[in-house]
């Protein structure tokens, strides 16, 4: 493409600074989008944009991530508002499908095809002329050796990687990945994360959804957080992490000498309070600086000659973090 059409909606400015939900060089724009299925509202007046690089789409189950991703690529029409890819409506302009790809979350893969045949089919639909493209795409996700195996026989992780290969074979400018690391083993996760980051570095718009904060942090510089179909937060991953870290947390610590450890803990600046939880047989520490505590606690245990048996955040579920963000 020679030049991109102008954005359909100018990104909002706040005091001269761009709203963190928007990017200056947007390739995907979502403006005031609402989607509902019968009485269920999946997205509610959502506005944000995505540009080159990897953006994490974070939210608990049912937050509307999948619906947003499907709306982005045109699989689902928005009941209200607009979605544009490179300034074009993916529901009406089928040519824009040649510029984007979706890796859906669900395990479904076409029956009766080998991985090679599936990727070749997608390549044919997109008019890919590079004869080696299907093989290269399979190689890039370490599935080349299984190219002749039927996709029906694959594990969840292998199906996911095959779908990633089918997306990559089209060389998309916009790649939308819905929970792409589901089912992948640790080695494959590292490999896929490196692959997505590389695509982002090449200037592709890569949007990755997950409900695992740490996973998104490893992948994306920018994070968009959804909650109940609404935008809960957006910005750099550090800003999101800080926002989450700065809220009060409760950490359970079990040790071989709780009394001695408690005495040391109350002297720490990162600790706001310590209580003894008889039910859990441990100390519950209240902190607003979890990261500092994570460094100080092992040091304190070593200096006090206390053996730590268990350290566990009591309210560290993503759901609770999101609740804090949208409070």
């Amino acid at each position, binding site marked *: 493409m020679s030049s991109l059409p102008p954005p359909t909606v100018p990104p909002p400015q706040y005091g001269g600074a761009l709203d963190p939900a928007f990017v200056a060089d947007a390739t995907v724009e979502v403006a005031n989008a609402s989607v509902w299925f019968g009485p269920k509202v999946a997205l509610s007046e959502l506005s944000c944009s995505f540009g080159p690089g990897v953006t994490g789409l974070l939210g608990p189950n049912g937050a509307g991530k999948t619906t947003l991703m499907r709306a982005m690529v045109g699989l689902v029409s928005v009941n209200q508002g607009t979605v544009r890819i490179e300034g074009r409506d993916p529901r009406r302009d089928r040519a824009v499908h040649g510029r984007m790809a979706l890796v859906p979350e669900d395990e479904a893969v076409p029956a009766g095809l080998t991985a090679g045949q599936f990727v070749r089919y997608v390549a044919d639909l*997109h008019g890919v*002329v590079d004869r*080696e493209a299907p093989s290269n795409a399979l190689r890039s996700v370490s599935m080349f050796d299984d190219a002749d195996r039927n996709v029906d026989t694959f594990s969840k992780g292998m199906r996911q990687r095959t779908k990633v290969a089918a997306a990559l074979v089209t060389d998309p400018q916009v790649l939308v990945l819905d929970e792409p690391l589901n089912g992948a083993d640790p080695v494959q996760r590292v490999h896929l994360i490196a692959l997505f980051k590389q695509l982002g570095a090449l200037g592709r718009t890569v949007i990755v959804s997950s409900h695992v904060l740490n996973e998104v942090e490893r992948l994306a510089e920018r994070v968009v957080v959804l909650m109940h179909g609404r935008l809960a937060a957006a910005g750099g991953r550090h800003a999101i992490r800080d926002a989450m870290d700065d809220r009060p947390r409760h950490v359970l610590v079990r040790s071989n000498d709780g009394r001695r450890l408690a005495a040391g803990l109350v002297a720490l600046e990162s600790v706001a309070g310590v209580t003894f939880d008889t039910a859990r047989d441990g100390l519950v520490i209240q902190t607003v600086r979890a990261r500092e505590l994570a460094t100080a606690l092992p040091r304190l245990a070593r200096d006090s000659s206390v053996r730590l048996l268990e350290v566990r955040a009591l309210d560290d579920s993503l759901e609770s973090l999101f609740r804090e963000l949208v409070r």
Partner: protein
Amino acid sequence: MTVPSPTITRRPRSRFIAIVLYTLQSCVPPKRWVAVLLPCAGALLFGLLAHAVDGAADRAFANIAAEAIFGLVMPIAALVIGDSVLGAEVRAGTFQFTWLSPAPTWQIVMGRWLGGSVVALVTIAPSCALAAVIAGSPSSAGPAFLAALVGSVSYVALFIAIGCLTRRTAVWSLAFVFLIERLLGGALTGVAQLSPTWESRAIFVGYLDDPPDRLIREGIPQGGYAIVRLLIVMIVALAVANWRMGHLRLSGASD
């Protein structure tokens, strides 16, 4: 990602051909073939049953074919095919791999229809012709083949259109066959004129040398005219499917 290498170009397989081959390979897996072949075997059994009917073999087969083969076997077999080539894929959540491509919707609709028609061509039509031979009426094999072919490809087009209109393709298709065609079509000639069951029966009867009078229905064109009528039905169904294809809301298998 991929290691940069000199690009070896190939002429990509045309989208249309790719869709047809995919339809044959993926949409109609072995289990679906069995489901199509079962009613086809039923057609052969009806051919045998014609021997039990009193009278000349030609007339006995004509009566059996009109009621059982074109009224029951052909719609059910075509329903299995029609649901396989689109509705089942939409429900399974795999249709999005085709929909999310720059291929025009007409190519997707026509590719799916052609794929389904090929399956009908090698299953439904020959089994209906073979039923005539088994019934001892080889002269009816040609008309039976032609009527079954035109009727089943029309059905496939209709069921694809239904698949584009609703997620419950099989249920609505059955309702179409048994409520609209059988019940309403049996009573109202206007409905029967647009029905693949009634029109394929009219094609069959129109090409028989000596058709039984009871099979000739007033107001329904016979032979070639019935073929034209079904072609129009088929074109309209494919046009509706094409129009709806662009408006599909593919919310995934899990929904």
